[in-house]
């Protein structure tokens, strides 16, 4: 490392982790794809502008109206102007819609994951440290959350809220409140095992209250398993968003989302296969990237499990 007086020394464990991650090919591949996706999503307006397109303008002249509105030309109307072709039925630029769709897909999935981790860790640690009654009550609550048929409930929840509410935020909240059970369980289990460790006992004896113990002793120990788990639930949250948008209770048109595109694509899959392949392929690629990140993290952070996973 460089001069320790300029930058604080990286703790040895973190350094090893980083070192190992950078040598993990799966993790690196996944992380770079995910990074590209995030950058593309964040830079959607700039990128679409560079392509000279926006996600909402109709191009009726690019469609063969007599044949139901399929794009004129091969591969769904791919051209120098429309890099991924146009959407059948509307002629909206598919490249612009796909990158704007990435904002919804990633935005909802990431916010939902953050919410799930926050909720799960708070409840999990509270259950692990809170004594028998609190543990029993919170654990039953977690069981309840895990047992709820989340798809059915989220469809009904999303169907009854007024349409004026901001849809992406709502999606993230609904996915999060129905999906934090797993994080809570993992946090509780880990907390229970950590609290019996000597250093935690020592901190207690030294007079640390439960808040301090949780913050200083337990949370750092939770970081590895929870981070790994978060990387695993992120793709499933993405699928949840895509699924809900596919079912028509997700984001409202004209806001694009990959799930919604796949939903409209069901009637076009023979007439214009590119309209299925592009959003479907991107969804697949992004999911794969996050799964690779998750397994990479797990391999490095939890060597005991690495054999089991890969």
């Amino acid at each position, binding site marked *: 490392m460089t001069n320790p007086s300029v930058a604080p020394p990286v703790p040895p464990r973190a350094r090893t982790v980083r070192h190992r991650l950078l040598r993990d090919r799966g993790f690196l591949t996944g992380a770079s794809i995910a990074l590209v996706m995030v950058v593309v999503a964040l830079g959607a307006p700039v990128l679409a502008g560079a392509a000279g397109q926006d996600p909402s303008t109709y191009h*009726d002249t690019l469609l063969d109206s007599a*044949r*139901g509105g*399929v794009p004129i030309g091969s591969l769904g109307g791919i051209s120098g102007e429309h890099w991924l072709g146009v959407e059948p*039925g509307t002629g909206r630029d598919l490249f612009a819609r796909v990158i704007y769709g990435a904002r919804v897909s990633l935005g909802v999935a990431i916010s939902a994951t953050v919410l799930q981790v926050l909720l799960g860790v708070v409840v999990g640690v509270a259950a692990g440290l809170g004594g028998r009654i609190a543990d029993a009550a919170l654990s039953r609550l977690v069981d309840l959350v895990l047992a709820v048929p989340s798809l059915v409930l989220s469809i009904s929840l999303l169907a009854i809220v007024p349409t004026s509410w901001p849809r992406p935020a709502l999606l993230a909240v609904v996915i999060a409140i129905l999906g934090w059970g797993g994080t809570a369980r993992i946090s509780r289990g880990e907390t229970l095992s950590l609290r019996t460790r000597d250093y935690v006992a020592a901190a207690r004896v030294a007079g640390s209250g439960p808040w301090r113990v949780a913050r200083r002793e337990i949370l750092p120990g939770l970081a590895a398993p929870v981070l790994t788990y978060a990387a695993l639930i992120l793709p499933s949250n993405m699928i949840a968003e895509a699924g809900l948008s596919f079912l*028509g209770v997700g984001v409202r*048109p004209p806001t694009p989302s990959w799930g919604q595109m796949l939903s409209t694509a069901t009637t076009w899959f023979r007439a214009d296969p590119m309209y299925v392949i592009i959003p479907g392929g991107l969804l697949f690629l992004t999911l794969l990237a996050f799964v690779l990140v998750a397994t990479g993290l797990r391999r490095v952070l939890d060597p005991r499990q690495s054999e089991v996973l890969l």
Partner: protein
Amino acid sequence: MRKTVPLVLAATLLTGVLAACQGGGETTSATAFDPATCQGGTLSVLNQGGITHLDPARLYTSGGGNIPSLLFRTLTTRNRQPGEAGTKPAPDLATDLGTPSDGAKTWTYHLRDGIFFEDGTPITAADIKYGIERSFAPELPGGAPYLRDWLVDAAGYQGPYKQPDGIKAIETPDAKTIVFKLGKPEGDFPYLATATQFAPVPKDKDTGVDYEKHPISSGPYMVASYEQKKSLSLVRNPHWSAKSDTLRYACPDKIEVTSGLDAAVINQRLVTSAGQDANAVTTDAVVGPEQLAQLGTGSELDKRVARGEFPATTYLAFNLKKKPFDNPKVREALSYAINRTSVVNALGGSAVAGASTTFLPPQAALGYTPYDYFPAGAAGDPAKAKQVLAEAGISNLTIELAHENDDSSGLGPKVAAAVQEAFKQAGVTVTLTAIDSATYRDVTGKPATEPGLSLQYWGDDWPGGGPFLIPIFDGRQIITAGGNFNLAQYDDPAVNAEIDAINTLTDPAAAAKRWGALDAKIGKLALVIPLTHEKDVYLYGKNVKNAVPDGWRGTYDLARVSVK
């Protein structure tokens, strides 16, 4: 039509009566179709909805419907001709289209000989009178409301179960004569007499709400088994005779209707046409993009398609009681801005929808008179729209557009998004309000809850201008309690008087001309923005013959197709 038009549309769409097609897609080859030798086989009908009700009192059909017309003969019926010729009624149980007297306020019909119910009982004028009276019973809702309006002193009649004395305005001087007394002249009476409410019902067989489990047939087929919304099996009625009914060919020996299928599945099955599906047709699944992409490519499928047009318009309805739509300049600007090409594509392309600048769809029978007062061209004229708004001193206009939450009836998010984008080009911001399709007509049909701007659809009850224009523009048809279709809430005594004057005409051609002129006059006010008129494209199985769309409803007629 006022109260129940949601039902018109629902019921017709469901029973597939709305289905419309023009003259194309005939299978007429070198050998002409001969109704005398077409008998035999089992016809399959693959449908999405329909067969929710089978009681002639409860059906809301145009021209007697497709499936219902196999079971029920009516005083008159559609003449089942293709194209323009098919927009006229023909005598069915009656010997002619009716004799008007007293300035079209009295209509007299005589029944033909040799007409029987499925049990062999002869059909009498009293059976027809009883069938009509039942349709007034609150237990049997759903039928067209015209008779309640038209017959003298019938508005409050509660049906034969509560008031067995019946309707005085319908007289049956003998078993073969029936006379209708109307409150005002109605030249369109022979068109209304095609409705299933004019089918005979034997009083001693009437079981009230249970009658539809096995309605007594007067047509070529009778019910063998019926499961509501799922399946209907029809076999030949031994007491029907082709001699007394030259309009229905009744070719198949059996007809099996399956309902509750997905449109994409139905069309894929018709394309594949495997096994029994070779004998299949549909009365309510218009082709989707998958099939349209295969059509016109010289494939075998091109020979198995019926194209027609049911008179119907998809339009944007303004509520003049709500700002800013009370301002004609706003309505005009939006009329200039609309991009009809996008709307056509959102509805499935030019094969299934055509751009319309008139409220009346382009059928001569309705009196179609071309006009385009606010020319928007194919793709809209946002510059002109901006100019009109600027001249009116309006800037930063934000409006709300109500639409259905699903696309199945063509009033959904796809069309709404196309409208939104077109108005955006003219600098008008549109926020979309999705309303559950099950309650959409309830919300828009009640002036208290009616949105300022909504996507609407109107289909014709019979090929005439009256049922198209009266519910929408007659000021006396504004119904505050709900079920209102005069969404502009427009009430002009001159227009109302013209409507009354046209209703006295018994010559359809003369009436059509004046309906067209009336539409062209009202069009100047931009009370609605006409978007598209309906076109319908239906496939049929490989073995199906004579699937010729009739001019009244546009789709092929089950009473005339053959699978032999």
